[in-house]
């Protein structure tokens, strides 16, 4: 089970900030994000336990995943 947190505009679209899912890897996770298509999810920056992670990353139980979009502003 991994705990997923979404930030930025993606969170507004997803309509949920935090959720838990039983997924094995990043590829599986991309399909289960509420209200986001796989294509949209693929364009989010992904961090696992605070560190950048690639598409091939395999989750361990209890991992905390963060998804967010690039941002800018003063």
């Amino acid at each position: 089970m991994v705990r997923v947190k979404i930030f930025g505009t993606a969170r507004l679209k997803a309509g949920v900030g935090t959720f838990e899912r039983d997924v094995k890897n990043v590829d599986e996770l991309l399909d289960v994000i509420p209200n986001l298509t796989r294509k949209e999810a693929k364009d989010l920056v992904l961090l696992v336990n605070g560190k950048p992670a690639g598409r091939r990353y395999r989750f361990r139980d209890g991992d905390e995943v963060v998804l967010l979009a690039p941002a800018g502003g003063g």
Partner: protein
Amino acid sequence: MASKYGGYMGKVLKIDLTSRQVSEYPFSDEDRELYIGGKTMAAKILGDHMTGKEKAFSEDNLLVVTTGPMTGSGAPSSSRFNISTLSPQTGYITSSNCGGHFGYYLKKAGLDALILTGRCDKPTWIEIQNEKVIFHDAGDIWGMKTGETQKALDDKLRMKNGRVRKNGKICIGPAGENLVLYSCIVSNERVSGRGGTGAVMGWMRLKAVCASGNKEVPVHDKEKMVKHTRKWFRYLREHPLTGNQLPRLGTAGLVSAMQMKHILSTKNYTYGQFDEFEKVSGEELAEKYNIVNKGCLTCPIRCARTVEVNGQQVKGPELETLVLLGGGILNDNLESILKWNYELDELGMDTISCANTISYAMEANEKGLWDNGLKFSETAELSQIFEDIAFRRGIGDELALGSKRLSEKYGGKEFAIHAKGMELAAYEPRRAAGLGLGYATSNRGGCHLNGGYLVILEGLGLSMNQTTYHGKADLTMLFQDLMEMISAAGQCLFTSYAFFPAPLMKHPNAWYTRLINKVLPYSGAVVRIINKYPEIACFHLPVFHHTKGFEYTTGMKMTFGNYIRCGERGYNLEREINRRFGVNANKDALPKRLTQSLQDPDDPDSRVPLEKMKKVYYHARGWNRDGLPTERTLRKLKILQDTRRSE
């Protein structure tokens, strides 16, 4: 002086407040070609007057309010104006770029700029209507907060039919009147926030300036400009930052990204992450408090928020306020920040400097250096403290001086987080080395925007190596110059984000984005060539609509290279004026906490490698080892004959 160029009204007025004498100030087309408008035009005017002996609170100081040629042209986000003066906070030139309506109405009144000097014999407000200047007694509005002041002024501008004449205004609140060193000038809900411009206006006993008129801003090639503007608006609306993130979350939307990248200033810049950041984030603001988005005139970005506080709809906080009055003082109560943000605007104080001064005071108290009663996370009394600062009562009288002066009195210089006396913005630079260099070298002091805002490459928009010093100096120079020119032209700096092609922001995981992130630290040599010989960029960049827009509006030939060069001229001119007031390499400094203490004890790179970057930066800028522009550089930029003649 009338102009052959579009975008200019062709008139600059100088108002001597002591004698109430109004005269036209000569600003020629040759000056316009070199110094464009906005902060650069203001620097030219200040440079012609300042010898280095003037004081901020003296009749020798000038408060220069300028517009750019794009102001009121109909181009996106082009309602900006600029206020420059000798800062009481830093002792150097400060400039503050502001949105709202005033710039547009100043041009409607037929003016490109206003130069205010001297001191009124009693509180006064000035009305400018179609170039005509009328002085009014401000005895009845002196002491009022900024919202009340602007309402009272609207009543005074009511016409016979009962309607308020359409106008733009700038005013100060009690903080400016009482010379709080970081007081600001307010225009509607927008703020010319940094460097203490409000205190200079307060010292002048000038409560407000209202501008109105019915003149039209001339546009050189209206047909092409209208077509180009449509395209430009569309581009900004489709860009992920200016069309999605900023409209939907405002600048507050950056909090979570900053947290993830360890650049969220927490507990007076002790840490780069705040455990309770979600409670004071842009997402929380949007979901629970945001009522409607607002924008300045002709702005498609609409980054401002309107929120509800105590049943009243008011302007929501920007990122800086949210972070520095949130994690900065270990406060996780968003509602309190909304309230304070409103209160500080009403009092007319810069939220960044005020928040950082409070967090310095809290740490000084915690460390036993100054028994002032302020404690991290204990915030019940803060509203009262803000009032005390604005009215210079009790402890507020000392807090009104800012963190630099307080650290000189009580100690703790290593955690008084300022550069040149002006407090830093909310980005913790130990994980954004380039921004650290920007803070240190910024002409107006600890400013992220005047500093080049490299943090957008260092983890926010792109993911360049955050702590390396490689490539940072040259990129900082490029972005400082670019933003200098956008500001001079009279546009919002947020339009510069479209400089980054949309695919890079839309697809952060694509191979080309990852490649650019990897390559950026090694781009220094290429960027240096562009910085040194910008004339080779003798074209318009497809993603950068500013140059064509400028050309169509003014009729001046403008390429990307010219654009950068004009920015470079402005940056060097301010530096050259600051030289007269004693700026040098030693003044381009950051507190030891940021350059010597590691943010993460396990990461030896988690501090700002400032000296290494400064060396490369000075070389790139054509400055000597002491951080001063060489004669050759000043000649190349055609500044020399202007700035040294006053010596």
